């Protein structure tokens, strides 16, 4: 069952640092929704995902955290201190590292997660295969994980944690290795699993978020500078040029605003849906 994720004036400072990595973040993602965390390099996006997953405190126990994190009905003050897998699953940015490399086939690699959880038996193979089918990679089940292309590796990496059926899914820059076709497939996948898992993902620019996200948050230097929906983001986009995908986007928005006036953002969103 998907869980809501709430942060209440959450702040975090790494041990030995003078400035906080995250300062006064408040956000609420209702259960079954998809939240995009946008921002340039070092904005604190990864730290935010890590604090929710529990791995942050585990590795930097002397860091300073304040505020509150709520996941489902459980409230952590200020943050979970143990890794919350399989309730919360977190996929690292680099899919080649996410895949353990200790198993010889894709199927075995996904079994590895269930073995770790003590959940594996011969009957679970059916659910692995159906997950692979869902991700469009069932034909790769017997392949060696290290021989796959970037996009295929990304989907296998995703499968290694989706098999645990997490309530909250945290993805760190899932788009880096993907071409357009694979991006389309990922957005379909997001729509398919939202019932089961609340999704939070990070990205450096807004394009993919405009296609899939219900909640969009923009971070800059550890501070939250925007939180709202797609329309709100486009309305105020002039203030966050760092998350524009390109100069062309900047010109595009400017010209559409000139020609369509207040309808501009609606027009852009509508046009995007037809692509």
């Amino acid at each position, binding site marked *: 069952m998907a869980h809501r994720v709430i942060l209440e004036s959450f702040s975090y400072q790494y041990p030995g640092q003078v400035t906080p990595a995250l300062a006064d973040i408040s956000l609420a993602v209702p259960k079954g929704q998809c939240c995009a965390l946008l921002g340039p390099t070092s904005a604190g996006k990864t730290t935010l995902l890590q604090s929710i997953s529990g791995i942050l405190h585990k590795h930097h126990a002397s860091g300073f955290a304040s505020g509150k994190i709520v996941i489902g009905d459980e409230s952590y003050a200020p943050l979970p201190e143990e890794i919350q897998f399989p309730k919360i699953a977190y996929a690292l940015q680099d899919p080649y590292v996410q895949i353990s490399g200790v198993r010889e086939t894709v199927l075995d690699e996904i079994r590895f997660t269930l073995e770790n959880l003590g959940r594996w038996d011969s009957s679970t193979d059916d659910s692995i295969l159906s997950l692979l089918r869902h991700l469009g990679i069932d034909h790769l089940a017997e392949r060696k994980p290290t021989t796959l292309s970037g996009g295929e590796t990304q989907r296998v990496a995703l499968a290694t944690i989706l098999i645990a059926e997490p309530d909250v899914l945290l993805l760190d820059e899932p788009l880096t290795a993907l071409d357009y076709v694979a991006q389309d497939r990922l957005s379909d996948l997001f729509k398919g699993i939202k019932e089961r898992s609340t999704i939070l993902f990070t990205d450096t620019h807004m394009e993919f978020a405009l296609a899939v996200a219900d909640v969009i948050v923009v971070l800059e230097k550890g501070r939250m500078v925007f939180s709202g929906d797609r329309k709100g983001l486009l309305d105020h986009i002039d203030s966050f*040029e760092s*998350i524009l*995908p390109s100069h062309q*986007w900047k010109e595009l928005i400017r010209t559409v605003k000139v*020609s369509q006036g207040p309808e501009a953002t609606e027009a852009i969103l509508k046009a995007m849906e037809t692509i």
Partner: protein
Amino acid sequence: MRIESKNVSFSYPGGPDVLRDLSFAIESGEFLLLVGQNGAGKSTLLKLLNGLLKPTHGSISIGELDTRHHATPLLAGHISVTFQNPADQIFASTVREEVAFSPTNLRRANARELTEKALALCNLQSVASHHPYDLPQAQRKLVTVAGALAAGTTFLAFDEPTAGLSQIERSVLDQMVTHLLNEGRGFIVVSHDLELFFRHATRVAVLSRGGLTFTGKTRELIESGTVLEEAGLRLPTSFQIKRRLKLP
């Protein structure tokens, strides 16, 4: 100076052709954008340019030098190539030392000056004495770009320089390219990032299954419609929205 590829084919020993009959030329001061799906042979082409691989048929010349007859360290004095996972090549304990590696190896008389200029162009002066591994990954990638610039070569070749970069680093690259094109340097860039590089490209080449299916101006490619789709690619979203909204 000019790079010219004449009917180049390449295959690994005993394997099928990775590249087939490629002909193109680029002058200094020009920007060739090379696009194509993964596995189309783009990285192989870059290795052919600096002589790490030698063509099985045809020839590539960098200025007067035929790559078949010269070793990589010599060709490296005229074209600097960075590969897709360049973070793997970092070994020095400061950014400045890392960037100075090429000009030192190539025994450039003005090595110091080249290093400082490359650091400035990539906006890395403020972190020049940091350890490369203390920088965020995106900035570390700029370190390798700076390392290539510092070689002071006429030609620069990059493999996917913007992968994993945010808009901040991308605009650094954007300005760097503008600056160096004005200086008369030549670029060969392999990238999916059409939005950033369409602006600079004096020519675009589409590589599909080892062969060139298109070479020409950016505008011709945008207007041709199907070439990109046939190569498994598509126009950037902003171009498509513009088209849908019938904007100029």
